């Protein structure tokens, strides 16, 4: 919908004038409007976090149990039995450090792709920029990430590891992880409204994707000439970024950082436009 809002200087009390006309073609993203709804964004993210922990008995512990259990099973299977290389880093720390962004990504992608269909009662009853819903899921996931992060610090202390100076760039990689989750999430959120069977695709995709990402193994096992193909997976950049910032593990700059991050922006920008283009029909078909 093309909605133009401006302040009329002629009116005694300045009031916003809004025009509603059918939208045509590619429309602007209207980031200003999204900014004006930031309070709603915050409260929806707060709602998700607060409801999740109110409903479960284990509460906040859930954010710890999940990555820790995965870390244990990976350490036994891949670290001890399969003896996958972990580039000189203790395998538990090596895999747990990757599980942080991976779990965050998987949860945010799962939650955001369900966000519109799951809030059909809101979408059909009230107006707000629909993008607020998937974005709020991406923010809500940060709480779990922070809790799980504390465990990592504990593990590093146990192994007497000190984070490298790269840690100052960790926030950058967190933002990149958010953008990756949002970019993929936007595509699937919109597709999920259009095609109801997409919700069966997402869990499968997440599972499949994890093995295509360097969570349980190191990127050093990928043959050099295939590294750039491997780097087309946006999550490679995020996972390697976490390992670099926290553990000091290096990786080839172009194939393991630049290509994946470029892919994230490709997915994000195309996702934003696809979402925006589909947005006008959501309330009619949801």
């Amino acid at each position, binding site marked *: *919908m093309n*909605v133009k809002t401006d302040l*009329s200087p002629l*009116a005694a009390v300045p*009031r*916003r*004038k*809004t*025009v*509603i*006309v*059918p*939208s045509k073609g590619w429309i602007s993203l209207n980031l200003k409007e999204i900014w004006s709804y930031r*309070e*709603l964004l915050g*409260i*929806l993210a707060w*709602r998700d976090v*607060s*409801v999740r922990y*109110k*409903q479960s008995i284990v509460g906040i512990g859930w954010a710890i149990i999940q990555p820790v259990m995965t870390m244990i099973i990976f350490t036994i299977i891949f670290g001890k039995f399969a003896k996958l290389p972990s580039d000189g880093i203790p395998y538990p720390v090596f895999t747990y450090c990757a599980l942080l962004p991976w779990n965050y990504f998987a949860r945010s992608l799962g939650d955001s792709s369900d966000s519109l269909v799951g809030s059909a*009662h*809101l*979408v*059909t*009853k*009230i*107006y*707000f920029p629909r993008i607020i819903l998937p974005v709020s899921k991406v923010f809500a996931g940060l709480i779990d990430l922070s809790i799980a992060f504390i465990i990592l610090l504990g593990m590093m202390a146990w192994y007497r590891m000190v984070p490298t100076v790269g840690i100052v760039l960790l926030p950058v990689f967190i933002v990149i992880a958010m953008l990756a989750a949002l970019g993929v999430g936007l595509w699937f959120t919109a*597709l999920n*409204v*259009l*095609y*109801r*069977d*997409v919700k069966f*695709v997402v869990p499968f995709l997440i599972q499949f994707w994890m093995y295509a990402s360097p969570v349980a193994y190191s990127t050093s096992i990928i043959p050099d000439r295939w590294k750039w193909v491997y780097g087309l997976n946006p999550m490679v950049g995020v996972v390697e970024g976490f390992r670099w910032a926290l553990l000091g593990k290096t990786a080839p700059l172009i194939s393991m950082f630049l290509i994946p991050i470029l892919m994230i922006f490709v997915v994000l920008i195309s996702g934003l436009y696809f979402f925006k283009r589909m947005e*006008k*029909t959501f*309330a*009619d*078909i*949801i």
Partner: protein
Amino acid sequence: MRPVITIESLSKKYRLGQTHTDLLSEKIGNRLRKLAGKLGKGNPSDAQKTRPAENEIWALKDVNMEIHEGEVVGVIGRNGAGKSTLLKILSRITEPTSGRVTYEGRVGSLLEVGTGFHHELTGRENIYLNGAILGMTKTEINRKFDEIVSFSEIERFLDTPVKRYSSGMYVRLAFAVAAHLEPEILIVDEVLAVGDAAFQKKCLGKMQDVSSGGRTVLFVSHNMTAVKELCNRAIWLDGGCLVNSGKTDAIVTQYLHENARSIHEQEWPNRDTAPGNDKVRLRRASLAMEDGGGPISIRTPVQIEIEYWNALPGAELLVSLYLYNIDGTCVFNSDSSPCIYPSGVIREICHIPGNLLNDGTYRVAITIVKDRFHGIYRLEDLLVFDVQDVEREVHWYGKWDGVVRPELDWTSEFIGQSRTDPGLAERS
């Protein structure tokens, strides 16, 4: 007076095929099948048939109107007249197909009470959540918080999750938040039809406060009493078009009068021109009430009589009757017992008991069926009738939910004193 809302040739088209979501796998499957049909010797028309018919419906068609500052406008019309679509476009939930709307100021829309309420959260938390969803800022909610709480009369349960609230408490809290929304334009859809009588009165009062404060209100309702009491102007929509607008009393009277028009009887004395074909032709269709004439209420048993000429001696015939409500939903389909008749006139009577249909407008269609499966003639809109609501014993005047409204047997008993928690205290 300057118009605050200007609506110019506003139209909204829905594609029936678009109103439900597709399956991606189905779509891909169809594509493949089509492709296979083109490549191989497969019948391409088969693939064509799998495409759903794309029926278009104009929910609004070329609507023009101006609404002035401070007006309280009632939007009336039957179900499917386009009222909700109009409100949805004004609240920017859905986009128009063509035309434009210009308005000044903030729009607050209440298309339901308690939008976004979360059952696990407490009353206090839901006030903030719901307020934010309705478009209030946090400072605004903070400022009005005490007022909202005292309006809702749920002070004691503020920190109880709303899942433990009685439905009355839930609605009171939800409406209290909504009532404190202070937009320049307020859009309200039938939300007053909730809560007990005293609370309804309080809400009506609050709405009147809103309008006397120079705010503009658009109010959709089936409750003509509420419309007359609240609105100084009424807009009547039918079939997506603006029928008339003007002083509430005049428009409401006109609307009620017009809506009494229905088809209770049709007769075709001339066999040659009667609807039908060389096998069967209709002679008469009528509606009979067991207790004589008068309006049909939800309690009235109704008989539908159908007479037709049969030119198929020896064939086993039956009449299949379809009853549709105003939304086009088939309420039921009922068959007469199949019989073999000589040629001549056959009469079939379908008895619809009282206390079955909900209030609303109904359309009757029939299919005459040969040999139990072969439809030989179908006619739509044979009869059209209205079923009216009756005076209720409960103090609640909203539209009764449901496609049908049967009177069912209930068994109720007290099975002992149970441990109560504070949230349950008000639940009856």
